[in-house]
């Protein structure tokens, strides 16, 4: 191959990579070209690993790199390349799905297809009224006090503390010519625990999900560290949409993301998807976990029970808010709820913003 042809090939490869959605910054492209001159590739496989090390920044990027690379350098036949070693062997360590990282298997908004009554439509929500805005304002005021706290790992200057703040003592001593007059302290301040809200948006919760999402929007606004997921037939991470300040704007943005609203219920499998992902687990660890659901599970209840048990072990406090529990005569006797109730810290009745606010006030005491 002539020199010019080689350059054209590389230029085309990088251009296609950009077009395919992997915008490698100039520094990375420079690294790639630099690597090619420093370490001349032995074969196509070696070239692939050179490209992978320099041009990708995450294992997810390989999904883009692989087809483009195959197109330019391997005549389309590259499916065996990103394998560990000894491809074709019977029981190699990665059988496709295993080779992928866990969070690629269950990514945000990529839950499994539902087996029945899965829907794919946009939810629409009515605008928030003035009265509702007032309740939301009260929620915003009371929520920070209701979230349990934990000691921060990072010490800050404090009046009384457990460590001497040598830095401040030193600074003070400058004024007095190196004489230390009084000690200064650092302490570990209290900070809010993370909050995780899991909202059931299935058909049986239809009349409540609007208020629940509004509540979640307030949680995201009022708490330091909050994450929100919705689930019906699949799990969706909705925190980024809820970060918008304007509540009605945030809810209409949600309508574009939550595709399973008002459909069937698969609480157990959705929670299992959540727990199967290391990145999501981290949000539940030591957190205040709020599940807004009626606990009416279709089909097998075993995954639900297992998932709730695991969630309660991970969480600092696991609260289950169900609209059914608003009825004073309610007893958790459905198969799903009966199994869950032993694992949750509190089961309370919440059907709208007002009852949610009352629960928050109760928690704050």
């Amino acid at each position: 191959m002539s020199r010019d042809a080689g350059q054209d090939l590389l230029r085309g490869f990088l251009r296609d990579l950009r077009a395919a959605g992997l915008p490698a910054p100039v520094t990375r492209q420079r690294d790639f070209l630099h690597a090619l001159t420093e370490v001349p590739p032995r074969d196509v496989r070696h070239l692939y690993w050179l490209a992978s090390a320099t041009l990708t920044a995450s294992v997810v990027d390989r999904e883009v790199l692989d087809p483009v690379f195959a197109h330019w350098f391997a005549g389309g036949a590259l499916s065996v390349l990103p394998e560990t070693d000894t491809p074709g062997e019977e029981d190699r360590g990665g059988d496709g799905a295993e080779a992928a990282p866990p969070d690629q298997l269950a990514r945000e908004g990529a839950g499994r297809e539902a087996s029945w009554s899965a829907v794919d439509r946009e939810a629409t929500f009515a605008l928030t009224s003035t009265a509702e805005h007032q309740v939301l304002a009260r929620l915003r005021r009371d929520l920070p006090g209701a979230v349990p706290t934990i000691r921060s790992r990072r010490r800050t200057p404090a009046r009384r503390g457990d460590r001497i703040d040598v830095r401040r003592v030193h600074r003070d001593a400058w004024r007095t010519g190196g004489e230390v007059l009084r000690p200064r302290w650092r302490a570990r301040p209290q900070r809010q625990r993370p909050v995780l809200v899991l909202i059931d948006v299935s058909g049986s919760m239809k009349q409540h999900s609007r208020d629940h999402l509004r509540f979640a929007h307030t949680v995201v606004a009022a708490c330091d560290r909050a994450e929100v997921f919705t689930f019906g037939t699949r799990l969706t991470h909705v925190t980024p949409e809820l970060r918008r300040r304007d509540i009605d704007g945030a809810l209409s943005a949600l309508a574009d993301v939550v595709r399973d609203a008002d459909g069937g219920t698969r609480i157990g499998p959705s929670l299992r998807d959540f727990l199967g992902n290391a990145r999501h687990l981290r949000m539940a660890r030591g957190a205040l976990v709020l599940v807004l659901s009626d606990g009416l599970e279709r089909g097998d209840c075993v995954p639900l029970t297992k998932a709730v048990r695991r969630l309660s072990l991970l969480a600092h406090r696991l609260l289950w808010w169900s609209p059914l529990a608003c009825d004073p005569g309610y007893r958790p006797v459905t198969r799903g709820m009966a199994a869950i109730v032993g694992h949750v810290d509190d089961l309370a009745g919440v059907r709208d913003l007002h009852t949610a606010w009352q629960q928050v006030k109760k928690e704050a005491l």
Partner: protein
Amino acid sequence: MNEEELAAGMRAQRYFADEGLLTAVYLALTLGRPLLLEGEPGVGKTELAAVLARVLDRELLRLQCYEGLDAGQALYEWDYPKQLLHLRATEAGVGDVYREEFLLERPLLLSLRRPAVLLVDEVDRADSEFEAFLLEFLGDFQITIPELGTIRATEAPVVVLTSNRTRELHDALKRRCLYHWIPFPGAERERAIVRAHVPSIEADAADSLVRAVSGARRLDLLKRPGIAESVEWARGAAALAANGDPWPVALRRALGLLIKDEEDMALVNAHLDELIAP
């Protein structure tokens, strides 16, 4: 050192890297760039840095990340008590105490001063503010100390960062690094690893162990066993086998070294006959 020598050196240290990892490591050494490694727990991310230090005959400096880690523990800190004493003893001016002798060197600064392999372990555990401290260091291998000026590396350190992907790292950090995802090893390589670390184990015993491990990884476990676990399992089973247990029995009895969760244990027990042929 060329690529074959690097591979041979790592093999001699009982580390069996596949072609992708080897290429990434070699590139990191040749281009002088930091290497960001991701992968499931227990696939040998941390071990790689230790092995690299031995192969290159450099000191290993390790910075374990955790939430709340700050610049004072990662980069440098002034030795305030010593400065105070100096001020009182000599009645010197304030500028006089900001000198090298009052500087406490933490791992990042230390790695600029002497030939080292720097391991920044589990970056994802530190909060995202901490990544900002790393940027100047990773980009140019230099640290700016306002009172002293900029300290540059005499010899570029070899830097390995590891992450378990519990959160997404900043683009600015990733842009400065080469990247490699370490998958679970293939059966062939895992056999080699187990036999290298547990020399007393027979070839077909290692074979059945590796088959059982890859079978267990295919189950729907909460925590899939890594290489570290299979080596531990092999060690435990070998100890029991030396005591007179037949190999499959020894494997079953040592199962607690491979599976470390009650629910997972129940699941594995249910499939035990498929995993470990009696």
